[in-house]
């Protein structure tokens, strides 16, 4: 026996005494990697202003988390990278023309109000990025909807605080807004699929988002249940009930690929904290998100409904988990 170890204080903990090396920050890092293709695509379509907004959003999210925890004398949690993910997702929900301070306001709402006031990571009831998006959407409608969308391939100045949207760069209505009136949008289904359309920074390219989703599936960060059931619900309903003279197939493609459904299905609805843990619960959650999305798109006042749908379903998570409790091995012990 080494002399040093004689009388050394030993660590006492309950079993198990070994732990998996995969920690929260590893999982969050995978999500960040999965979001990169969509970010690169945004830079290609909208220019470096999209990167500027994303960086501002990420930095403010991390900073607000750090400051809140510091002021409230809680442990520092920025190293778990969840604030970074929230920051990226928040920026992805904004049009590229928004003022540079908009993501800062959004980050405050997402991190402080939605996440930290409830106790930080794992304790929030609704998805912080989505809640912040809706908060901004109803607080600054002129910045986030209608005329705020600019044409694809029009690169806006990367660092000017406000952008003056001239008629030349204004996209007019997004495909989502057009199709709500039963009219076929100008952009083809293929450009919707690839992402050469007007829309929010991160949600335009279904291809890039699905690429990220496949990465997450392969890394076993997410399971297929929520994305597949959500997309399938939207697909089936839109195929069966097209608006105007549009064929079911065309209507379905625009519904799936031109709005926020894909980013919602792959990145927002699969957020661990605000989605069910059981497979059955996830399936119900996905179908619920899809149904509410389509209800809002058909009957609501907004062209877009995914954010609201996911936020509403977030509120059901506890009951879905409780209701889909797996049957215990060998039956319950009394």
């Amino acid at each position, binding site marked *: 026996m080494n002399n040093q170890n004689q009388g050394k204080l*030993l660590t006492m903990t309950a079993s*198990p005494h070994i732990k998996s090396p995969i920690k929260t920050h590893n999982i969050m890092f995978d999500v960040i990697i999965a979001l990169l293709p969509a970010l690169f695509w945004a830079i290609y379509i909208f220019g470096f202003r999209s990167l500027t907004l994303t960086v501002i959003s990420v930095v403010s999210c991390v900073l607000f988390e750090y400051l809140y925890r510091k002021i409230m004398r809680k442990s520092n949690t920025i190293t778990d990278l969840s604030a970074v993910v929230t920051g990226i997702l928040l920026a992805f929900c904004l049009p590229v023309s928004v003022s540079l301070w908009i993501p800062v306001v959004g980050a405050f709402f997402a991190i402080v109000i939605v996440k930290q006031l409830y106790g930080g990571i794992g304790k929030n009831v609704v998805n912080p990025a989505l809640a912040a998006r809706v908060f901004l959407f109803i607080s600054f409608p002129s910045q986030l909807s209608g005329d705020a969308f600019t044409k694809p391939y029009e690169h806006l100045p990367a660092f000017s605080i406000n952008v003056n949207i001239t008629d030349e760069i204004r996209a007019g209505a997004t495909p989502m807004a057009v199709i709500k009136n039963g009219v076929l949008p100008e952009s083809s289904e293929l450009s919707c699929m690839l992402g050469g359309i007007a829309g929010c920074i991160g949600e335009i390219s279904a291809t890039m988002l699905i690429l990220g989703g496949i990465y997450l599936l392969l890394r076993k960060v997410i399971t297929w249940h929520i994305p597949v059931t959500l997309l399938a619900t939207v697909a089936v309903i839109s195929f069966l009930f097209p608006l105007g003279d549009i064929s079911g197939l065309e209507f379905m493609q625009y519904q799936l690929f031109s709005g926020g459904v894909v980013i919602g299905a792959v990145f927002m609805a699969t957020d661990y904290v605000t989605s069910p843990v059981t497979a059955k619960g996830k399936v119900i959650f996905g179908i619920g998100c899809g149904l509410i999305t389509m209800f809002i798109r058909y009957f609501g006042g907004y062209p877009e409904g995914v954010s609201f749908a996911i936020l509403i379903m977030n509120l059901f998570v506890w009951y879905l988990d409780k209701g889909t409790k797996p049957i215990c091995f060998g039956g319950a012990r009394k």
Partner: protein
Amino acid sequence: MLKTFKGGLHIPDNKNTRSCPIQAYPAPGKVAIPMQQHIGAPAVPLVKKGDYVKKGQLIGSFENGLSCPIHASVSGTVADIEMRNSYTGYGKTAYIIIENDFEDNLDESIKPYDGNPMQASPEQIVELVRKAGVCGLGGASFPTYAKIQSAIGKADEIIINCAECEPYITENHRLMLEEPQYILGGAEILMRATGAKHMTVAIENNKMDAVAVISEHIKSIKQASVQVLKTKYPQGDERQLMYAIKGVQMPAGKLPADVGCVIFNAETCVAVYHAVYNGMPLISTVVTIDGDAVEKPQNFRIPVGTSIEDVLSNCGGTKDSLCKIVSGGPMMGTAQWDMNAVIMKNTSAILALSDKTQDNHEGNCIHCGRCINACPMHLMPNYLAAFSKLGDKENAEYFNILSCVECGSCTYICPGNVPIVQYIRTVKGQILAEKKKAAEKAAKEKEAQSK
């Protein structure tokens, strides 16, 4: 498809000692033998300070009820009988301390079986096993004689558990390679005693060399087969083992015998063999010494009562990075606070772990559901931990907290580093204590009414 169960984990198995033969242990100068090494009542010391005891001599027993006799593991003088904390840290237990005289004087009562043990009656076998103090060496340490009794006439199938699913531990693996005749000989005795009609030796597929050896030796036994199982933790848990082999879920609160099975650990079979053939009591056990803070990982056959300090010094000592000592496997073993803790009958491993392996900073649950996929009992450990933390027993019971087997899979996989099992264990203990109290109260009231 290899047979297995639903849930569980693929943990790096770290079986570093798989090619370390079981070595004889250099006789320790002193042993401290605890009187409680089994489930049931503690044994009562039969010797007093200053007595001379022989190796294998009965030094502790308790006759009225479930218990297990205790024997001296060396010959020498009883230096003291002292009360020490039990190895779980819960309650006190008497330890008989014997100074070794290095004479190895064997007790006269130890003699080979007179006749052919394979013709012994079940009652004779049960008595021999009881007298030898054999208990389950897989970890739970249930007195083997009582297990045989519970299975007589009920179990058609005897399963020899050689899964050894805990990382690091290789003692059963080495026994299968080096002493297959004792494992199978003991198993045959147990088969005879319980009246089982078929024997299955269950081995995980990370020990294919052992599968080959056992398959070769098993040919001489009628009605016996080897079952290779997928390597997955906790495959060695009796519920999961039975599910993998027989496809039946043992109902909660029942025994394997209730579904027609009886399960014995490989090393228990070896102990039964020696108890019946040679009359040799259980006074030493095979232990794997490993971990990243021990200099020379080994497999030793160590006399019961040897201190961990002595054991580690015989393995080249520990490294400076030593942080934790675990008695048992890394998933379900018990951390020790003291190098004076001793080897017991059911000790399967001593692990010296460095600070590198230990990250006990608790984070938040992120609701990822990994624990649910890992739980072999199909529970929701995330909610169990959350409600346990809040002390919400009602909800904890709704989520079947009492079915938790504390295998540690959830806690291993948790990315938030939540000590799930610790929370569950605390509240589970409280609920069970309350239930026991309520049952006692009800019994008393009933008694009072009948008067």
